[in-house]
């Protein structure tokens, strides 16, 4: 299974973290520090797998972002590479040629998309179209709900209560 997913920029800034196994806040910082030291220093044209604490980290660089997933020793590394690619493609569809800024400003959206893709550390939805559709459906749900609440009269009415 996938233990966690990290997105780290080339400068070592964390853009997204998702943990499927229990890690305390302290461990999380440590893990990220260790891994960014390990991964960001690796040159181009090297292999995309790193051994780390008896687990394996599969990473791939897209533009200035490193997508990393940590898996068990006997998981299939190439499959994980495909999942990463899959995720990037879905992001690309959703945002329309995605860039790092999209992920910075819509960090929760990136999460929600990831949640559609993976659950409990396993791939859930191999179809890009379905993922985009599902995310869009939820977005519209959010929008309609927001419209109801966010009209100014509503706010005033609530506050005046």
């Amino acid at each position, binding site marked *: *299974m996938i233990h966690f997913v990290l997105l780290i920029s080339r400068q070592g*800034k*964390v*853009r*997204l*973290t998702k*943990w*499927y196994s*229990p890690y*305390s*806040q302290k461990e*999380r*910082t440590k893990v990220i520090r260790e891994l960014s030291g390990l991964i960001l220093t690796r*040159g181009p*044209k*090297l*292999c*995309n*797998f*790193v*051994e780390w604490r008896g687990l394996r980290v599969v990473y791939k660089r897209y533009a200035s972002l490193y997508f990393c997933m940590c898996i068990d020793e*006997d998981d*299939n*590394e*190439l*499959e994980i*590479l*495909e999942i990463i690619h899959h995720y990037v493609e879905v992001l690309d569809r959703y945002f329309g040629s995605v860039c790092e800024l999209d992920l*910075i*400003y819509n*960090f*929760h959206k990136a*999460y*929600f998309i990831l*949640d559609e893709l993976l*659950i*409990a550390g*396993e*791939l*859930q*939805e*191999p*179809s890009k179209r379905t993922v985009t559709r*599902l995310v869009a*459906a*939820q977005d519209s*749900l*959010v929008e309609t*709900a*927001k419209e109801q*609440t*966010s009209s100014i009269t509503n*706010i*005033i009415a*609530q*506050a005046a209560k």
Partner: protein
Amino acid sequence: MSGPSLMDSLFQRTLEDLIKGLRQQLIGEQAFISKALEEIRKEIKSTDLSTKSTALLKLCYLSNLHFHDMSFAAFHALEVLSSPRFPHKKIAYHAISLSFHDSTPVLLLITNHLRKDLTSTNEFEVSLSLQCLSRIANVDLARDLTPEVFTLLSSNKLYVRKRAVAVVLRVFEKYPDSVRVCFKRLVENLENYDPQILSAVVGVFSELACKDPRSYLPLAPEFYKILVDSKSNWISIKVLKIFAKLAPLEPRLANRVVEPICDLMRKTGAKSLLFECVRTVVTSFSEYESAVRLAVEKIREFLVDEDPNLKYLGLHALSIVASKHLWVVSENKEVVIKSLSDPDPNIKIESLRLVMAMVSEHNVAEISKVLVNYALKSDPLFCNEILGSILSTCSRNVYEIIVDFDWYVSLLGEMSRIPHCQMGEEIENQFIDIGLRVKDVRPELVRVARDLLIDPALLGNSFLHRVLSAAAWVSGEYVEFSRNPLEFMEALLQPRTSLLPPSIMAIYIQSAFKVLVFCLHTCFVRGGSTAGVPASASYESFDDLSVENGADSTVAHGQTCTSAPITNESIVNLLKLVELALSPLLGSHDVEVQERARNLLGFVDLIKLEALNSSGQEENDSERKGVEATKIIRLVHDAFSKELGPVSLTAQGKVPVPDGLTLNENLGDLETICGDIELPSSNTFSFGYPSEEKDVSSFSNLQIKEDSGQSNESTSLLAEHRKRHGLYYLPSGKSEVISNDYPPANDPALQGDNNDNASDLVKLTAESLVPKRKPNHSKPRPVVVKLDEVDEKPVAVKQLESRDDSLSGAVRDILFGSEDILPTSSRSNLPNSNRKGKKKQHMITQVESKENVVDDGNSSSRRRKDHSHGKERRHRKKNAEERNETDRKEKESSSNHPRRHKSRQRAEEPLKVPPQTSVIPDFLL
């Protein structure tokens, strides 16, 4: 104070504002964040849920990417969760799965929220709560929500169902009893034709099968069908993982599956699937020659591929094959060796592992030579990687592959001189270990130690200090093999030793002491016949005693005497040198160094008179004094010349605890204090420096004698100490000083035992080596002393966690229960059902008979199969009968395995009276 005002909610900073502000960094990141946190703390108390949820979202952002603690908001997250609005829920679930853990206090309050959402009609809400459950589930949550998850497993919304399937894995892990409820439905989902559901179910099973494959053997036909029919690579990969676990357990299954896997390997274009096939074959189907050949072909394609990923995986696959088919590695030797110079460090390490896998006793010398040369050229990190793997490979199984120890010892010396070498500690251990175990190598060991000690340049390298300490110890302990002990003295006392840390300095001084005593002894006592000291004959016999362990060492004595004659003059110089070198150390801040230096100088003072006067020995007075001094020399020499034997780690355990001694009394608290103190590394035996250990024992004796009044407590402390640091207690000649209220460490029985064991093992190793050894070895392999109890690798009996145990117990339970049902389903689906059904029956019996731990599964299952051969109907009638039989068997075997039986027992208890059906009636009827 109430919540924020209307204005606050109107002008609340949104997440986007927060991110923008952070990026503009007008006031510095830290300041900005703490300001934002302050705002959030205020806003999150708002009664308006929109304000609250926005605050929560911002907090998530800060927690997630800037690692700020958000545990204070746990309750607020729950409040947002109770909102009827979807966006709020979404944010709340996000926050909860991000921040909750098992010890979050409000975890108890979430159960009802989850339950409500799990039964919601909005599929997205259901999905959110499932996702959250998968992340935060603990035992209570898993137990309380099992019914809801169970219902969702057969939901007609695919979207919900596949999520429920994935989450069920976590529920099982946390609360194994839920297996009883959900497992059947999970299995039903295996027959679903929707690829998404199938992918989820297979994923769950591949995780489950990793932990306890045997329980899932009965499902093999379903998996087989999926393997053959599947169009999706994702699913195929997972199914292959399952078969990799199942196949080794059941040879017939392997027989059947190997062909489809090979087909898949030939046909597929996807590298990930191809690699999975290869890996499955090399891990679990290594007996199938043709399959392995095919896999190796594919591996070779990987190895020569441009893509570093494939190359890495190819090497990785090779290292899996290596354990069973070494020829594969040798066939690809060139690629492997070439990869040693790959730009990618990971590939280098992988190929290094492979190279080490090829090492055998015939080629160890060549390979090590190549690698050491390679290490000289490579970067420090990889250099040490190489050295480390050479060291660990060569020392594996008590130096199993080393025949020529002289060579190995000089290799160790060579390795420690490599500039980047940081393996000092390991080399130190091996130097001493070899010294203790292999008698024949000692002369060479001393020579290597001399070369190391004498080089003043090495003292500057702090990584080498450990090696030097070993060399110093060797020089002191085995000084009788040295050509020129005087040289050692000079080396040990050279001025640059001041660079050493005190602990190693102390070893240097101690070794100098030993060497000095040896020199004096050769000069005055042994060489005494020429110097005119009488009664050399008696010394002769004494000498025999002292070197009882090595007949050849007397020969060495002869050599030393002839090659480096020690004259009185040189002794006088030596004593001067000692005084010169050690007097400054008398003021050392380190107690150990100071103490030892003082000891040595005191000894020199005692001896000096004799040394100075021995030239003019006409005077009676001084001669008498001289004789006294010789006595001292003899005494001290005697103390040093007793050989240090290896001590088994378990030796302490053999010492019987005397009556009335409670070892654990009053020490319960100590455990917590000492818990973090590391025990000395254990796979080798211990070595102690004689004086150290003398100190300890004499000190302890003193203590015992002094306060024998409260001896109970002190001896128990002492015993505890011995137990903990058993390593440092050697069976030695000091038993006479040990008072009788404590059993001597070297019980005669124990020693005899050790010797016996050693000689047994010598025989054993000799026997085991004979067939392997090639006749052309010029030198016979020297005897390597082993202590069996210590050196045998601890058998890696991996105890299953109790949770897993009960989980698999429950799974097995269900599978036996569903025995009646499963075959029908497969029969209806499969064309060649007859054979398969039988096979399944067979496998079930196999699983059942597993409780017979005697692993002759084949014979027993065959017998059973005959029994159930042919007509299935008859067989089904017999099911009950068989079950009884199994029960009986389990009872029988229970005496052997109380623990397993216990968990089984628990699982089966409710089933005893009416067979199976009482717990889960609806499934079975």
